[in-house]
């Protein structure tokens, strides 16, 4: 019975890691941190700037809220709002943002992409209100 419980516990931990972070090998050196849930460290809203009119007034308001940005900063969450065609000085998609932009394009714009503290990426529909956004961002 004891063995079975151990097997289930270990199995659940491993399954949790696989669900959020498929390339488990990359985390082999961080076995202890597997026990803890990932938290968003970067939140990227990817959108087509020209489609701003398709957003609701509540969405435009929270996307532009200085208070929300300040609270993100305090919580250690980098909050970014980028156009899908964003480029750097070299005329290329910024490498750090490329995975998020790709993910959002596939999922459909506008999209909220969360990058977890261990590198996992998840994507969500753009929250409807500031309070929904705060819940999603964990602030």
């Amino acid at each position, binding site marked *: 019975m004891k063995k079975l419980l151990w097997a289930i516990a270990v199995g659940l931990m491993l399954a949790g890691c696989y669900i959020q972070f498929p390339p488990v090998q990359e985390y082999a050196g961080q076995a202890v941190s597997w026990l803890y849930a990932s938290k968003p460290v970067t939140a990227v809203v990817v959108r087509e700037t020209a489609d701003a009119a398709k957003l609701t007034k509540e969405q435009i308001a*929270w996307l*532009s809220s200085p208070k929300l940005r300040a609270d993100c900063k305090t919580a250690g969450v980098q909050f970014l709002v980028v156009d899908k065609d964003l480029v750097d000085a070299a005329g290329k998609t910024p490498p750090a943002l490329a995975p998020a932009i790709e993910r959002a394009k596939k999922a459909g714009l506008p999209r909220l992409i969360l990058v977890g503290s261990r590198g996992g990426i998840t994507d969500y529909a753009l929250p409807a209100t500031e309070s929904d956004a705060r819940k999603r961002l964990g602030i």
Partner: protein
Amino acid sequence: MYLIDDNNYGEVVEATAYRTDGVCGCLPRAKPVGECLQAVPFAEQVPLIPQGEWLDRIKAMEASHAWVNDQRRAVSAERGKSVVKNQGNLGYCHVFALANCMEAVRYQAGLEYIELAPESMGGVVNWRNQGGNMDTDIEWAAKHGCAARSFCPYLLHTPSQFKTGWDKNALEHVPIEWYELGRQNMWAETVTALLLGYPIYPGFDWWGHSVMGGKLVVVGSEICLEIENSWEPSWGDQGYGVLKGTKKIPSIGCGCFAPRVITWSQA
């Protein structure tokens, strides 16, 4: 609130002449509406917000302090120093307003605040102290960009006075795409752009001046335009003023633009 309307606008017109030794900052546009290479017509790309929704949307923006000018005030508070610039006696309002718009778009993207140096865009007028056309400015900025303040001392407009590498740094801050407002209805397009969170880059022929527009405020029952000027924070209400009546509508003759995309850079 510092209101500028049909009754007192002479004060700011006089002040412009006095500050810049008579150098007019914002000249009539160089090309006809629709021919600026870097800008696409706003009203053809973005559906205008019906007038019946304006007040409701203004309230929503107000509740979250989501206006561009409120974001600018938040940055000023955070850094303990106003972001409002001072063009001194340079006739460079046209590039100061442009740089303000670029800083505003950087903030909205989530980039750390970097003070940009409008003087680094003086090449658009051959590094002379003179006014410029806003449509020419944005075409020039799309090629050359705007350097960070750390490369360019305040109010010097000769490249030999800038730090080595300023031109390379300028290419990190390039406004790539703009909307051009005013094809259909200048005021309705101005209101729509601001309600959607864009900063605007308007010129006013009655003033011979260009500023950044970043907020709508209701005065009595009238919707007015709040601007961020480049006459240092001691001007108006900590550098901001409100245009009312006929004075609030950007001039077709000078142009009005809204930046869409700027290059991504932490430098």
